[in-house]
C-alpha cells in the first residue's frame, strides 16, 4: 500500500501495539479487547472506520479526478499516509507517544491514547476541537520538540492535509482511549492478573472459597454477560465526547475584551497571581520562575489502591511524567501566545496537568489582569508589546493565524 513510501518496502507490516495496561490483564480478559480492536479499528494497513465516531472518514466520490477517492474511507487513509511520514517517529504507530525518537525527548511526545490534550479552546475536562489540534499542527508547540507543520498545507492540492492528519490523530486517540476504557471495564470484572493471583493465594490459605477454576469461571461469565454492553457504552461515551467539543457552547470565549495591559492592570494581575485566592505562585513561584513550593511536595499517584507515591517530588501530568510549572519569565507559551490562548489556559486550566481551571474563581477582568501580568514577566514588568486583539471571529469559520 506504499505505506512507508521512501523507506523501502522490506518492512514487515506495521501493527498497533497493545497498551501495557492491557498486558496486565489475564489472557482471558485480554482476548475480547484484542478482538474488539481488531474488528473495529483493524491494523495500520487494513484500517477499519467505525461509523460510531464523529470523524469524517471520507465518503466515496466516484467523480473525483483522484481514483483513490472513489472509495469510502479515503480521508482516513490519506491521513494515515501523512501521519506515518511526519509524526510516527515521535508519536508512534499507535499514537502511544513512543516512536523511535521519543525516548530522547523531554517533554515526551503526546500519548494520544489517554484522550487528553493540553492546549485547547474548550471548557475544562473536555477534548480539543478539530480546530485546536489543527492550530497545534500549524504552530507547533514552542519550547518543545513538536514542530510546526504549516508547510504541509502549502501548495495546490495540499490545503486539506492538516485536516486529514487531525482526523487520523483523533481516530488513533479514540482507538487508544477505547482500549483503556475496556481495560478498566475488564479490571472491574476481575480480569487483572495480579488480582487473580492474590485471590488464588487467599483461597489456598483458606481465607476464602476461591479457586483458580471458580475465579476463571466467574470471569468468563462476567465477560459473556457484560463485555458487549461495555464496548458499546464506552464507544458511545467517546463518540459523544468528541462530538460535543464541536458545539459552540463547549468553547471558552471571553465575555469582555482584553483589558489594556497598562501598569495598573499588571499591578492588579500581580496581586492576583500572589493572592491566597488564586495561588498561581504556589506552583509558578512568587517571581513566576516555575519554582513554587508545590514543586517540592511528594504526591500520591491518583487512583492507586493501595496508594502509591511518585518516586520524585513535584508535579506530575496525567501520563505520570514529572513536570515543572512553566517559567513565565521565558515568554515561551506552548499553547499559543495570543492573549486569548493564555486566557483559555487560565480559565479552563491545562488539561492533563495539575494546573486547575480558574474560571470558577476569577472573573473575566481578573483573568485578563493576571494574563497581562504573566505576559509582562518576560519584560520585567513593562507592558507586553503584543497588540490588542480584536475578539475572535465566530468559531465555525475561525482560521487560526499562523505565527510564522
Amino acid at each position, binding site marked *: 500500500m506504499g505505506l512507508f513510501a521512501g523507506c523501502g518496502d522490506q518492512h514487515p507490516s506495521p501493527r498497533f501495539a497493545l497498551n501495557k495496561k492491557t498486558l496486565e490483564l489475564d489472557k482471558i480478559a485480554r482476548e475480547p479487547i484484542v478482538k474488539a480492536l481488531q474488528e473495529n479499528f483493524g491494523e495500520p494497513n487494513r484500517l477499519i472506520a467505525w461509523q460510531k465516531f464523529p470523524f469524517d472518514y471520507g465518503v466515496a466520490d466516484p467523480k473525483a479526478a483522484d481514483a483513490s477517492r472513489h472509495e*469510502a474511507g479515503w480521508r482516513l487513509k490519506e491521513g494515515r499516509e501523512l501521519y506515518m511520514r511526519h509524526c510516527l517517529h515521535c508519536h508512534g504507530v499507535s499514537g502511544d507517544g513512543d516512536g523511535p525518537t521519543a525516548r530522547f525527548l523531554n517533554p515526551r511526545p503526546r500519548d494520544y491514547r489517554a484522550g487528553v490534550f493540553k492546549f485547547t479552546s474548550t471548557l475544562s475536562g473536555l477534548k480539543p476541537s478539530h480546530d485546536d489540534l489543527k492550530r497545534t499542527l500549524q504552530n507547533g508547540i514552542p519550547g518543545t520538540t513538536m514542530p510546526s507543520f504549516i508547510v504541509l498545507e502549502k501548495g495546490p492540492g495540499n490545503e486539506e492535509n492538516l485536516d486529514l492528519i487531525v482526523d487520523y490523530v483523533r481516530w488513533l486517540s479514540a482507538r487508544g482511549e477505547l482500549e483503556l476504557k475496556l481495560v478498566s471495564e475488564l479490571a472491574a470484572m476481575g480480569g487483572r492478573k495480579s488480582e487473580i493471583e492474590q485471590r488464588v493465594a487467599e483461597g489456598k490459605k483458606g481465607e476464602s472459597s476461591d479457586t483458580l477454576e471458580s475465579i476463571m469461571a466467574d470471569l468468563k461469565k462476567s465477560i459473556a454477560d457484560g463485555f458487549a454492553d461495555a464496548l458499546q457504552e464506552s464507544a458511545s461515551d467517546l463518540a*459523544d465526547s468528541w462530538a460535543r467539543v464541536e458545539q459552540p457552547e463547549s468553547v471558552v470565549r471571553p465575555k469582555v475584551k482584553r483589558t489594556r495591559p497598562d501598569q495598573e492592570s499588571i499591578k492588579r494581575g500581580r496581586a492576583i497571581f500572589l493572592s491566597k*485566592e488564586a495561588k498561581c505562585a504556589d506552583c509558578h513561584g512568587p517571581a513566576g520562575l516555575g519554582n513554587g513550593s*508545590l514543586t517540592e511536595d511528594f504526591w*500520591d499517584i491518583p487512583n492507586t489502591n*493501595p496508594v502509591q507515591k511518585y518516586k520524585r517530588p513535584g508535579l506530575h501530568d496525567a501520563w505520570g511524567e514529572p513536570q515543572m510549572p512553566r517559567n513565565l519569565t521565558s515568554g515561551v507559551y506552548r499553547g499559543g501566545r495570543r492573549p486569548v490562548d493564555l486566557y483559555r489556559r487560565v480559565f479552563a486550566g491545562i488539561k492533563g496537568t495539575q494546573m*486547575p481551571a480558574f474560571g470558577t*474563581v476569577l472573573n473575566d477582568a481578573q483573568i485578563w489582569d493576571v494574563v497581562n501580568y504573566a505576559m509582562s514577566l518576560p519584560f520585567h514588568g513593562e507592558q507586553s508589546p503584543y497588540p490588542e486583539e480584536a475578539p475572535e471571529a465566530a468559531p465555525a469559520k475561525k482560521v487560526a493565524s499562523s505565527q510564522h
Partner: protein
Amino acid sequence: MKRVFRVPSVRVFSVVRFAAIALAATTGWLLAGQLSQPTQADEQPAATRTRPARAAGETQLLAFNQATAAKSPKGTGAVSGVVTLSGAAPTLAPLVKKGDPNAKDAAVCAAETVPNESVVVGADNGLANVFIYLVRAPAGHKADAVPKDPIVFDQKGCRFLPHSLLVRVGQTVLVKSGDPIAHNTHTVTVRGTPFNQAIKADDRVGTPLIYDKPEKLPCEVKCDLHSWMKAYHLVLDHPFMAVTDADGKFQIAGLPSGKHKFVVWHEKVGYVNRDYEVEIKADGTTDVKLAVPAAKMAAFNGPAPRSIVVSAAD
C-alpha cells in the same frame, strides 16, 4: 483553507443506529457501523447511609440522606450490616499536625490536626468509609428521578468533608469551602468527564459539580494545591449504594427480592469483596457482618523497607 466537512451534532450520533458491516472489498476496508446505547434513564432514589454528623459539611449530607432514605417499598427488601476490622487498627500519623509551622498554608491548614482518614475505626472495631454497592441496577428496577437537592461537599482546615460521598449521575454536588484560601477540586474519573476547578476562598455558595457518567469504583477526589487532601465519591446511576458510618454500619433499602452481588470496597484495600452475595427477602431486612483482616491494611503500606549494606567489615 476551508474544511470540507462539518461534524454532525451529538444528537445525530446517539440516534444513528446501524448494525451492518459493509465491506469495501478492493482496499480491504471495513466500514463497520454499530449500535449506540440508548441514553440512560433516570432512576429512583432510595437507600443509603446512616452516619452521624461529624462536621459542618456532613449535616447537609445527612439531610440529603434523610430525604432519600425511604423505607423499602412494598415487596422489596433491605440489607443492613456492619463491617469490622479484625485485628488491631493501624496507628496512622496525622496528615498535618496542629500548629506545624512547616505545613503548607500553615495558618489555615495547621489550625487543626488533619487526621489520616484512610483507615477510620469506630466503636466495636467498626470500619468506616467502606463502600457497598451494586455496579448496575438490578434487572426490573424501575428508573426514576435523580434527587433534586444538591449534596454539599465541603472543605475546612484543608480537609475534604465528608471523606466519602455517595452521588447519583446528574445530581448536583455543591463544592464549598470554609477556608480563606483557594482550593482545587480535581476528580479522577475513569468514565466521566473529569472536573478540575479551583474553588474560591470561603465559598459558601458552592461551585456545582455534576457527574455525567457512572463509575465502576469510587472515584478519587484530590486537591492539586494541598498534596494530602483526598476524598472518594461513588458515582452511580441508581440508588443502591451505601458507605459505612463511623461505626462501620450501613443499610441499603428498596432492593428487589432475590440474590444480589455487591461490591465491597475500601480505599486502603481495594476490593474487600467483589462479589458479595446477599439474599434479599421481600419486606424483610437481611443482616450481614463483614470482617476485614487488619493485615490487609498493613500489607499495603508500600514496599517493605530494605537495608543496604554500605560498607562491609572484613
